[in-house]
């Protein structure tokens, strides 16, 4: 059984179009066990009931942004080991440094191709196939 068959991914983004594009890219990689949330707070609520292996989170979101979500994940014993990839249109050096200090596993800049996202995910979880 390939890793992509068992990998559970949570996509967190407040923009429906962006959420849809990420899920579409995951499906092109044949990663089917995907769920979505529209901000960090609702993501945390879902994760308490449905754990995942990997989170792809947008940075700018209402209620709770991507870095605050990451901070909460790393502070909780149940979620501190989950893979976390920050998805952002503006990867400033400050944002990269902040993300790294909080325990971000990887980052990808929008807009990205499916191949770029696949490479980014494989750097975190290993080969999908």
């Amino acid at each position, binding site marked *: 059984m390939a890793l992509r068959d068992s990998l559970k991914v949570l996509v967190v983004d407040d923009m429906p179009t962006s959420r849809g594009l990420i899920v579409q890219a995951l499906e092109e990689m044949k990663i089917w066990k995907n769920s979505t949330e529209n901000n960090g707070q609702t993501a945390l609520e879902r994760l308490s009931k449905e754990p995942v292996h990997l989170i792809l989170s947008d940075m700018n979101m*209402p209620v709770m942004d991507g870095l605050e979500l990451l901070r909460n994940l790393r502070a909780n014993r149940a979620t501190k080991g989950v893979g976390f990839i920050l998805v952002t249109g*503006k990867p400033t050096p400050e944002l990269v440094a902040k993300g790294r200090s909080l325990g971000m596993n990887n980052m990808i800049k929008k*807009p990205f*191709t499916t191949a770029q996202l696949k490479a980014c995910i494989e750097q975190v979880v290993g080969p999908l196939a």
Partner: protein
Amino acid sequence: MTFAKTAATPQIISVIQGEYAVSDQPNVTMSTVLGSCIAACLYDQNRRVGGMNHFLLPEAKTGDGQNVKYGAYLMELLINDLLKMGAQRHHLRAKLVGGGKMSQLLGDVGAKNIEFGRRYLINEGIPIDWESMGGVQARRVHFYPTTGELKEKFVQNDAQIDKPAVVARRPKRQSNVELF
């Protein structure tokens, strides 16, 4: 990306292809000239902030999916900066302009941009208050971000695009006296 400076005097921000601007200053006018490109003008009249982007989806060889990703990215940058400036997502409204068919020889790039612009805003739940898209002429557009007011003027061809919108006329001679 341009943030308008606070100033009492009128300020014109030129928004070129691939860029965007946001402002909450009533003295600011955003200006652009569009052929096949689209400008999405978004504003929150309650918070009196607005912004404009200017994009042309590339004819991606990798398929329309990559086009949509690029367009969505440009729209998201604009929306995120409007929200940072105080706009409320549920109050955002839009005006769409551009997407002309500028050459009979080339494909209708403008139509793809029109389709993307409409579909994106519908998908995001942002109402389109007004649109002027398609046709075969370029447009000069002025957008007033704090009110959402938009003015467009059709221009016939490239030679006219860079002409000033208003040309000063010589005063009519009132008498036989020549003034120097």
